[in-house]
């Protein structure tokens, strides 16, 4: 892949080194030329371009027309947005991601069609999940962690209960049951039985409620 990374901070430089080590062609842009010396190793093989993340001349020097991916991780939310929107709409870069600090702004940019990683939301979600003990395994999480897919071995107290008893619209849903090595998508009336492994989608805010349901809270 040809990747352009705007912003040579901790995230930008570490992403650049990782992708370069995997064999990708990486160009890094930063308005502070000193960042390249401070954060990139001497062996980093990619281009180092000093200037604004949305400078047309600089983007073309980075060969943005040939880029497969563009990552905007400068310290400025607005620089990231402007650069990301230029990359995706003007240069038609297939994969574009922007990092956003202000979570209130992130929603608006998602609506404008710019894929964003909201650092604050993501970190809060992660830290919370480490602080609050859950007796189930999180298999995946979506967006910035607002929704999780979790795996639970059915506790004895729920044997014989209906799937509907564990469902809370907008919060908790059982999406699959694995029984004797076979899986199926249950209905509201499906009965849970001993040895079931169930998978649920849960909103992050309802984790404690799920804990209570499972008798672990």
């Amino acid at each position: 892949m040809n990747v352009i990374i705007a912003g040579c901070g901790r995230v930008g430089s570490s992403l650049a080194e990782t992708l370069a080590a995997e064999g990708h062609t990486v160009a890094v842009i930063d308005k502070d030329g000193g960042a390249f010396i401070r954060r990139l190793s001497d062996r980093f093989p990619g281009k180092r371009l000093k200037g604004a993340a949305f400078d047309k001349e600089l983007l073309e020097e980075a060969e943005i027309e040939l880029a497969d991916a563009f990552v905007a991780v400068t310290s400025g939310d607005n620089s990231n947005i402007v650069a990301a929107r230029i990359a995706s709409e003007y240069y038609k870069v297939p994969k574009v991601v922007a990092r956003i600090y202000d979570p209130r702004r992130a929603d608006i940019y998602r609506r404008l069609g710019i894929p964003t990683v909201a650092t604050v939301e993501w970190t809060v979600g992660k830290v919370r999940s480490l602080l609050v003990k859950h007796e189930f395994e999180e298999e995946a999480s979506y967006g910035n962690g607002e929704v999780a897919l979790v795996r639970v071995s059915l506790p004895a107290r729920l044997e014989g209960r209906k799937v509907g008893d564990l469902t809370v619209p907008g919060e908790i849903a059982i999406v699959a049951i694995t029984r004797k090595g076979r899986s199926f998508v249950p209905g509201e009336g499906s009965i849970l039985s001993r040895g079931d492994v169930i998978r649920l989608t849960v909103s992050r805010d309802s984790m404690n409620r799920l804990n209570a349901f499972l008798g672990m809270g």
Partner: protein
Amino acid sequence: MRVLITGGGAFGSYLAKDLKGAGHAVTVMDQDPEAARELSERQPDIEVVVGDACEPLLLEKAGILRADVVVAATSDDEDNLVIALLAHKEFEVPRVVARVNDPRNSWLFTDWWGVDHSLMAPDTFLSVVEEQVATAPHHPNAASND
């Protein structure tokens, strides 16, 4: 007309004074409390709101939903572009005017970013004139006057 100006620096405050004088209702937003205080002391008839104009909630508080015109007049081009885009796409402001600080960014200040009309910052304007003066050919009569 109701005009919301974001950025209360020399440019924004001059503009505010001028538009107020022409009878328009003017609100100025600036994220620097000191600059905002100075402006409201000098111009008590202009409404001044302290806050980041790239923040949709604060734009709403400053009355963007009733604004006929938004002028994105900060000294950062990326801020002006984001403000223009929000004003146009998110708040459907009928007319958006934005200030270009760095002429290299002028290609972005079009309807693509929600900008109806762009203005060069005064210092850019000056540097363009200076360049024109420095590179102008001599008047054909000049040689004979030497």
